[in-house]
């Protein structure tokens, strides 16, 4: 239903500890944002791409599909930088803006690749129960896990209702579309709370008395992966800063 989510569960790195993957991908993400865009974005982007399609084993098609929409946002968001307004000429093409837009697009793309590296290799099922270790209150992590679970039930409901409405010509024109959409919104609300009620009872029968604690699959931390990741991060920073200095 959500392709990126599904990919994460079947990815080659699935058995790895989420912390390892977070170190690598989020470390790279910080580099992408914090290092000077030139050549930082290029270095980070290249490294992330190599890892993504190499060791992490993502296919180009999967990546393209996942990045299509966010890259659209990036492009649309860069356009306003290409011109300046309010000066003596009213509106003019801004050449300085061109560099800025390019930098922005570069940084964003690199950062998106890092995000993708995390998202495509690290399923939320592995992440959510471990958030408590980071100091998130258990009530919040448990609600997050419940949201994650119910999300798919509700998305499926919406899909089914949308199909059923379409089949009865619910999207024939604007007014029928609004009626249909309102029906979806209301039906999802009713279903969401019905789900909550039924799940509450279903869990009570399993001994639920307020805590949704579960045992988490043990995933040993690979020291070599952590060391290699650290080395990659250090290398990225070093190479970027070296090139930067050499260019000045």
């Amino acid at each position, binding site marked *: 239903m959500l392709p990126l989510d599904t990919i994460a569960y079947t990815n080659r790195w699935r058995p790895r500890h989420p912390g390892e993957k977070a170190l690598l991908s989020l470390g790279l993400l910080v580099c992408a944002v914090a290092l000077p865009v030139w050549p930082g974005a290029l270095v980070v982007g290249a490294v992330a791409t190599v890892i993504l399609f190499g060791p992490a084993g993502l296919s180009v098609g999967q990546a393209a599909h996942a990045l299509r929409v966010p890259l659209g946002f990036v492009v649309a968001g860069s356009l306003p930088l290409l011109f300046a307004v309010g000066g003596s000429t009213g509106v003019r093409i801004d050449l300085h803006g061109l560099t800025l837009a390019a930098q922005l697009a570069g940084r964003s793309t690199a950062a998106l690749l890092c995000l993708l590296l995390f998202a495509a290799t690290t399923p939320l099922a592995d992440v959510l129960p471990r958030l408590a270790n980071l100091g998130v209150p258990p009530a919040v992590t448990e609600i997050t896990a419940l949201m994650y679970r119910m999300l798919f039930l509700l998305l499926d409901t919406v899909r089914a*209702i949308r199909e059923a409405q379409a089949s*009865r010509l*619910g999207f024939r024109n604007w007014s029928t579309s609004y009626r249909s959409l309102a*029906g979806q919104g209301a039906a999802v609300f009713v279903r969401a709370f019905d789900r909550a009620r039924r799940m509450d009872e279903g869990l009570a029968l399993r001994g639920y008395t307020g805590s949704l604690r579960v045992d988490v699959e043990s995933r040993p931390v690979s020291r070599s992966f952590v060391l290699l990741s650290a080395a990659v991060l250090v290398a990225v920073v070093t190479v970027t800063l070296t090139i930067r200095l050499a260019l000045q």
Partner: protein
Amino acid sequence: MSGHHDPAAVPVVSVHDLYFAYEPGRPVLAGAELALYARHRLAVLGPNGGGKTTLFRLIVGALKPDAGEIRLDGRPLRHTRKGLLELRQQVQLVVQDPDDQLFAASVYQDVSFGPVNLGLPAPEVRARVDAALGALGITELADRPTHLLSFGQKKRTAIAGAIAMCPRVLVLDEPTAGLDPVGVEALLATLHDLHVAGTTLVISTHDVDLAYRWSDEVAIVADGTIHRAPVDVALADHDLLTRARLGPAWAPTVHTLLERRGGLSGARPQTAAELYALLDTATRTIQPSSHHTGGAGAGA
């Protein structure tokens, strides 16, 4: 059988060399073929995850095939707004979980959804809704909120909503699931009325006996393809049944075994009742004396 079609006739809906996959590399249907003729009753059987629901969603245009064609009255379906509009006036799907179909506040409103969308004038809408509610025997539920209905009532409301569109083809995904035996009979009676009125009917089911007694033809969806055959042929093909994770229907099986033994005559029974009648007749014919004495022993 009444539903057997003229082989030269153009099917209302047909499916040609259909390919579909939710995920690349894992096709659910790969080269599926199917034809639905006017007044036809087709039962679709197959294992869990075989692709029955997927096939139905393709037939009503909710999914777009990766390759292959769906034809409506012989003309290829185009997945445009217009093409789908035309299709949906002809073909209606009732999904398995009625909660996925009912979203309006009351039964009347929900059933009127389709006719209103068709742009019909108010009296016509009312007439259609009343007819649909009447056909399903739920006229007195019209004002009830949908979420307070029992499962069987919800199911009937969902079917009424589809019927109010006056479709030529009505497709029902596991319509008998969750109904008690009497509820199943009532549903079958409704389907019979629709059949008599000329609607082409397609149902999916896991119940081989139901398929056997109800349909003119069965389609077994397994391994990406559709095997079509008249009911008695399909349900005698043990290889096919095994592959489709199905068992044999019991009435014809018992009949066949008894035929071998001799002493049974008459047409192959379609239902339990027919087989019982046959056995009873046979009993009477052969051993008239024991007929009324044996009855009490059944429960001992």
